[in-house]
Structures are given as C-alpha cells and as structure tokens.
C-alpha cells in the first residue's frame, strides 16, 4: 500500500492532463469543422464573416473548461503554486475520477456542438437574418459541457478536503 501511495500524485496529474488534453482535442476538432464550413460560406459571401465566426468558436469553450479543471486540480495538489503534499493512492484516484466528466463530456460535446454549428452555418448561408435562432441550436449543447464543468470543479475541490 505504501508503494501504491507513491502513485497518488501521478493519478491526480493524469486527471488534470486528461481534462485539458481530451477536451482540447475535441474543441480543436470542433472549431476546425466550423472553420471549414465557415470558409465555404465566406468564399461566396464574405459579408457573413462575423456571424460565421461566432458559430465557429462555440465548440472552442470545452477546451477552455478543460484547461480550467486542469489548473484547479494542479493547484489543489500543489504542482502549481507550491505546497505539494503527499497524496494517497485513493485520493489520487478520486482526483482522476473528478477530472473525467470534463474530459469525456468535453470531448463529446465539442464534436456534437460542432455538428450543430456546421448545420447553423448552413442556415446563415441562406438566411443570415435568422442568426439568433441558428445560434441557439449549438448553444444548447453547451449546457452539458457546463454541467460537466460544474461537477468536475465541485468534485476536485471536494476531494481536496477529504482526509484519505
């Protein structure tokens, strides 16, 4: 058990890395999809740039949420800001688990939100005056990324207070 406890910090850092990495990959793919579709619209009508840009950027938020979780986790375990203390295997595992909602939901929601954004970019191509309505559809997907962010923040902070 003593040996396993040496890996507590590893698991906690792994959780932080996964939150930033997986959400970031999802956001990168999502923003890229929006950019490719946006470029198609701009080729024909450059005046729609502003509206298309907002839709393209929507799937980018998951990457930021992932970064936030990674930052909080690394601060909690003392990797950033100093004051690192020994983290038990169980606590490390808890940190890893706390980061997973953001990692998994972040990635999936970024891709799904990009699908909705691409469809909405199609709406902008034909009916730019419907921008408000077109933006609602991808924005709805954001709800689940925010829920995951919330639970990951609460869990990471909560785990910090556990005496295990």
């Amino acid at each position: 058990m003593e040996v396993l406890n040496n890996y507590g910090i590893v698991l906690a850092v792994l959780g932080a890395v996964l939150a930033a990495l997986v959400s970031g990959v999802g956001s990168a793919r999502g923003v890229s999809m929006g950019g490719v579709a946006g470029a198609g619209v701009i080729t024909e009508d450059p005046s729609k740039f502003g509206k298309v840009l907002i839709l393209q950027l929507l799937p980018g938020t998951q990457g930021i949420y992932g970064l936030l979780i990674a930052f909080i986790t690394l601060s909690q375990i003392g990797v950033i800001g100093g004051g690192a203390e020994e983290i038990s295997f169980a606590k490390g595992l808890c940190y890893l688990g706390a980061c997973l909602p953001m990692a998994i939901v972040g990635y999936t929601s970024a891709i799904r939100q990009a699908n909705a954004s691409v469809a909405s970019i199609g709406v902008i191509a034909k009916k730019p005056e419907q921008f408000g309505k077109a933006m609602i559809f991808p924005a709805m997907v954001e709800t689940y990324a925010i829920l995951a962010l919330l639970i990951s923040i609460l869990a990471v902070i909560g785990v910090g207070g556990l005496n295990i």
Partner: protein
Amino acid sequence: MTDMTDKQFLYAVARIRTKELSLFSKSDIDQLLSCKSEKECLRLLADKGWGTADETDSDKLLANERMKTWELMSELVKDLSVFNTFLYGNDYHNLKAAIKKVYTNSDLEDIFMPNGTVNPELFLQAVKEHDFTLIPEHMRECAEEAYQVMFYTGDSQLCEIIIDKAALNAIYKQGMQSGNELLAAYAELKTAFADINIIIRCIRTGKDKEFIKRALAECSSLDTARLAEAAVNEGFEGVLTYLGETVYDDAQVPLRTSMSAFECWCDNKIIELIKPQKYNPFTLSPLAAYILARDNEIKTVRILLSGKRNEIPDGAIRERLRDMYV
C-alpha cells in the same frame, strides 16, 4: 459512411448552401413564363446571371450553364469520380456517337457531350482502330458488341439498345457501390424510369419479347421479366397493372396522359428524392442534389425557351415545366 467521410465535404456543402440561393424558384420560372418572347426570356436570364444581355444562342447559353456546374464541382471535390453515377451517361453517349460517326463517315462536329470520365476523342480513336482496350474496362464488352452490330448489320437501333442498356447497368452498379444513399436511390430511379420508358416505346413499336428483354436493365424495384411478360401478353394495360403492384403505382396517370407527362413525372420524382438534402449539412449528398437540381433547372429553362420560340401557349408550356428544388 464513416465519420471522416461525412466531414470531408463540410467546405463544399457550405458553399453549395450559398449557391442554392441563386437556383431558380417557382416564382422565377413564373416570371420567365410571363415573358412575351424568347428574346425577353434571354434578357431576364441575363439579369439573373445566365449569359450576357446580347446572348441569342440559347443552346450555347444552356451548355455554358451546365459547364459552370461542373467547373464548380471540380473546385469543390478533389476527385470527380465520386460523381461517376452522373458522368457515365455522357461516356456511353459519346461511345454511341463515335460508333455512328465512324460508321457513317460523317464530318459532323459537336456530337460529343462534355463532362464524361473519358476524353471523347479516345472513343473515336478506339472505334477507328477497332481497339477497345483504349477505353475503360466496363465499356469494352458493349462497345465491341455494338460495333459488330453496327458494322455488320447496320442496325443502329440495336446498337443504341446495347449501349443504352450497358449505360444503365454501369450507372446502377456505380450508384449502388458509391456508399452514398442518395446516389444509390438516384441510380435505382434512373434505371426503373428508363425501363418503363423503354417498355412503353417497345409496345408502341410492336417489339417482340426477345428485343424487350435485351433492352431492359435490371434494378431492384422492378421485375424486368414480369414487365416484359406483361407487355407481350397484355400490352399497355398489362404494364400499367404491373406498375400498380410496384412503388411506381402513381406513374399510371402520367403514362395514360402522354410520354412527355411521364418524363415530367420522372423528373419531379427525382426532385422529390433530393429535396431533403437542402437540410443536410454533411456528406456528398447535398452536392449530388445540387447537380441534379441544376440539371432540372437547365431542362426547365430549355423547355420554356423552346416553347417561347415556337409560340406555344403559356398553358401548354406550364404543363411541361418541372418542380423546382428551392
């Protein structure tokens, strides 16, 4: 289709969404119909970006519009072979034209259709040298058979039937193998509509069962053996009765009206098939739908211009106009 295949046409589909805005709607067609003459129609078309204000050659104008569609597709898609389902028809037409040109030793120019997968001059060379290894493999067998029929019997109708059937088989096979639902459904409809067209013409010209069987191409929505049987035993009514048992039940009314009404019905069915693609942001399907929509648009404008040129009453022209995609 895989996720990656779905996503690789994002740019192209987004551009097509904007291009769809310039497709003619029903009200644009009504506006053209209300023009008093072909000249006025051409002027209105020029205002909408078709040709120039002093354009007088409507055939050239329509050919240019078709060319524009394929130029756009060449920009949007790296490899145009994804549209072979549409392009094969032009190849087989060019093969037919090359055989007839060589057989009749004609000097006629402009007999070839652009936008095929093979340079038409290659067909000419293959026929002149009687070397069909120069053309794609899927065309060789029918090219040899049609060549033998044409040069040894002079039966141009049989030559056409052989090539037309091979064309339908190639389109059908390509559509089914494309992995795209829309192209597969288009190939099915195209083959079935051609079979119905052939069977009606065979009945009217009194062709025998062997000829009919030789002309019909296989597809999954029609049983060609039963269709041929019905045509030979019961004639036109037999064919309609058989169609009543298939998904083409509603073809009976236009078939009873006229062949042009049936052709109009076929084109409208294709438009009905592609309409959902207006709301699909992924895959190749919206691009394929745009090509078919442009074809339909050009065909409709041709009917309109030819009606105006020949001073056909607006009511008669309207009956032949196709439904529009947008």
